[in-house]
């Protein structure tokens, strides 16, 4: 990986806003983006990629490319939490292992979105169906995590997992719902639909991402203080594990013949960790796990790593491998 591509990734206003947020915490500036603005930015970003993805899908229809990417997506979203769990069990109790495993088995939409702008900057593209894959990969890790919990935890009777609630949390959380909904809207309304809303949902995209990443930076910065409580093992896990997942993802992408852009976005999905949907689900279903651990890992270690070094790293690898074959 050349330093140039790292620099190119970091030296754009959107990613720099994230680090500006982090720095603001270190300097104790009281900078704050109060609720519900972050919720608005995040909703905006989800709707944008949903509508855009749906529109892209409507242009090309169901191509072989779409079919090719489904199997590796399902595979990774089921397998990652399982191997994560067994690695984590080496050092942690069952509850925290389940929560962290589910966190890393799922995905981060904002990492995906940032990867998309990175790719576009390089003049490349990805299929609209990748948004569908992202949606597909958000929920299974929650279910897999709770199955692991049922198998390995000895819990009291009255704290048995309520599976109906679990499935609802997993598949009907707001972000999955809004993604599916806007994908369908984007798909059915096609070009006319997209044109009518693109002044908001396309043109404002980077600016809104800048706002959101500024806030992410602030929140991540606040959590950095908790890294020492988390310990070296988990800090290393938070960096190395995403790389491993990306590598496995790249391997599968090659195996299933994805094109370069899709392979990159897929590897980013594999590498990213959830910090909205999964933590909420874990709080409900595994209250014994400490949210300070899994949220901090995802938000203050893995997310910054991915958007700064991860993206160019995965891209460089894919560049090399796809050029060869």
């Amino acid at each position, binding site marked *: 990986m050349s330093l140039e591509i790292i620099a190119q990734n970091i030296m754009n206003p959107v990613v720099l806003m994230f680090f500006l947020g982090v720095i603001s915490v270190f300097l104790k500036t009281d900078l704050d*983006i*109060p*609720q519900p*603005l*972050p*919720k608005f930015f*995040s909703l905006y970003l989800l709707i944008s990629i949903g509508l855009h993805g749906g529109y892209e899908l409507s242009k090309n229809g169901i191509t072989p490319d779409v079919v090719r990417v489904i199997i590796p997506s399902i595979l990774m979203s089921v397998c990652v939490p399982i191997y994560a769990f067994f690695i984590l069990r080496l050092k942690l109790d069952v509850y925290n292992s389940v929560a962290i495993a589910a966190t890393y088995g799922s995905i981060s939409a904002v990492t995906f979105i940032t990867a998309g702008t990175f790719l576009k900057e390089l003049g490349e593209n990805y299929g609209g169906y990748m948004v569908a894959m992202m949606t597909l990969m958000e929920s299974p890790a929650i279910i897999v995590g709770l199955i692991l919990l049922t198998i390995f935890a000895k819990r009291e009777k*009255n*704290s048995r997992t309520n599976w109906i609630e679990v499935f609802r949390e997993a598949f009907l959380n707001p972000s999955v719902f809004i993604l599916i909904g806007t994908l369908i809207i984007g798909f059915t309304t096609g070009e006319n639909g997209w044109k009518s809303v693109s002044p908001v949902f396309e043109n404002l995209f980077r600016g809104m991402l800048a706002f959101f990443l500024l*806030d*992410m930076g*602030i*929140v991540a910065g*606040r*959590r950095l203080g908790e890294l020492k409580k988390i310990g070296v093992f988990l800090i290393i896990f938070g960096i190395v594990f995403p790389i491993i997942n990306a590598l496995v993802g790249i391997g599968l992408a090659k195996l299933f013949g994805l094109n370069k852009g899709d392979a990159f976005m897929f590897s980013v999905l594999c590498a990213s960790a959830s*910090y*909205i949907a999964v*933590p*909420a689900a874990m*709080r*409900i279903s595994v*209250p014994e796990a400490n*949210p*300070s651990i899994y*949220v901090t890992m995802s*938000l203050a270690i893995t997310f910054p790593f991915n958007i700064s070094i991860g993206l160019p790293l995965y891209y460089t690898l894919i560049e090399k491998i796809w050029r060869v074959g």
Partner: protein
Amino acid sequence: MKAMKKIEIIINSTYLSKIIEVLEKTGSTGYTVIKDIVGKGERGIMRGDEITDVFKNNYIFTICAPEIASKIIENLKPVLKSFGGVCIMSDVSWIKY
């Protein structure tokens, strides 16, 4: 004016629905909720992180007759045990026109 109990609960926002369930099934006639508040307790600082809703509290209180109050408290205990949070009770007079 009627002697009543006020029960106040501060709990992580994720668990609000569990508290309301208890209040509804134990015959409370009403309750009030203040959302998105912050604080510090045994389980660390709830700073109201903007990205996840996981580090935010809710404040719920209900005014009820003493006999209902003890029923509510019995039913709240297991919830508090599983999910944490603080619960206090005090004496108030309900003003009726």
